[in-house]
């Protein structure tokens, strides 16, 4: 579990258009610079926005990654709902949940 580095990658992508371009051209070339486990790598590469939400990525970071991956706003919200339905509670971070209902 390396939520910190998952979020740091997304933070860096959000700030740096050149890094975004490099990432979109060849994800592995960027991902190799971060300490990430298999689950995180899979969720980032797919991309599985719902799973990244479940892993605990802060929405203020995740919403920009979703937009960068081509998600329209309603699709992004739905992806998080689907993540909850499929994977259960958010596991870490300030959105951590215990009742399978998201942030409520």
């Amino acid at each position, binding site marked *: 579990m390396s939520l*910190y580095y998952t*979020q*740091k990658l997304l*933070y860096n992508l*959000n*700030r740096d258009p050149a890094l975004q371009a490099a990432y979109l051209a060849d994800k592995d070339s960027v991902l190799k610079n971060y300490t990430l486990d298999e689950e995180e790598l899979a969720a980032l590469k797919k991309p599985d926005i719902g799973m990244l*939400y479940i892993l605990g990525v*802060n*929405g*203020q*970071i*995740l*919403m*920009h990654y979703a*937009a*960068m991956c081509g998600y329209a*706003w309603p699709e992004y*919200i739905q992806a*998080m*709902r689907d993540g*909850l339905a499929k994977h259960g509670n958010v596991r870490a971070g*300030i*959105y951590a949940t215990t009742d399978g209902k*998201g*942030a*409520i």
Partner: protein
Amino acid sequence: MSLVFAGVCSHAPGITGRAHMADPDDKATFHAAFDEMRVALEATKPDALIVIAAEHFANFFMDNMPAYCMGMGQEYHGPIEDPDWLGIARTTIPGNPDLSQRIIQTVQQDVDLAYAEEWKFDHGISVPLNFLTPRYDLDIIPVNINCQGPPLTPLHRAWKFGEALRKACDAVPERIAIVGTGGISHWPATPDSGKINVAWDKAFLDEWQANDKDAMLRYTDAETLRDAGQGGFEIRTFIAVSGATAGSTAKVHYYRPIPIFAVGCTVGIVEL
């Protein structure tokens, strides 16, 4: 001179980025309220505007997160978000490093404060400026209070920061305006985006209007998270404005829950 204007407003990215998806009356009335705030701000002829914001991991991350930071740059850039996503074109915003430095030095007498000579504005500042200084012709001094990555500064420190900021404004010859910007109850960027606790918002705004220090400092973060979502942590920006205007009441000129904007949309002005 002193503080010539103080107010609060919302900053959610949907206000500009999803304006086309909103009910036309919601969009028109809220944007009009922002415009009235701009007119009121301009009437006070400020030399600089301090924006007390709650940024969202645009400049500050968990590798080195300041509780409080003030800009000391010659200029700033924003928005950091995709301009099409946010609905605001990228631009350069003028700063005033000399004024920043004098204010920072006075604030530091009471509250430790980080500074930044480089700052990319995110929607937390770019949305308010889009309405309040649309020509980007007023010197801006950005302030960030960490409301995103706990541990967060306690509410009583946000009040203290506001008081220190007021002292600093009173000590400079320039005419200073302050705008605090944050959500009240909201669950932004979650599956519950669009949920708004109107009763909680109204209770908090009543306390804000009355400059009721004890009531505003009473909230615990656990209560705020439960009743107002993680976005409710941004009440620190409103409380800082109240600390800077202790003893003055304020008026909420606009409040309406607008789910597509993901927040109870607010414009309030302190009666200095």
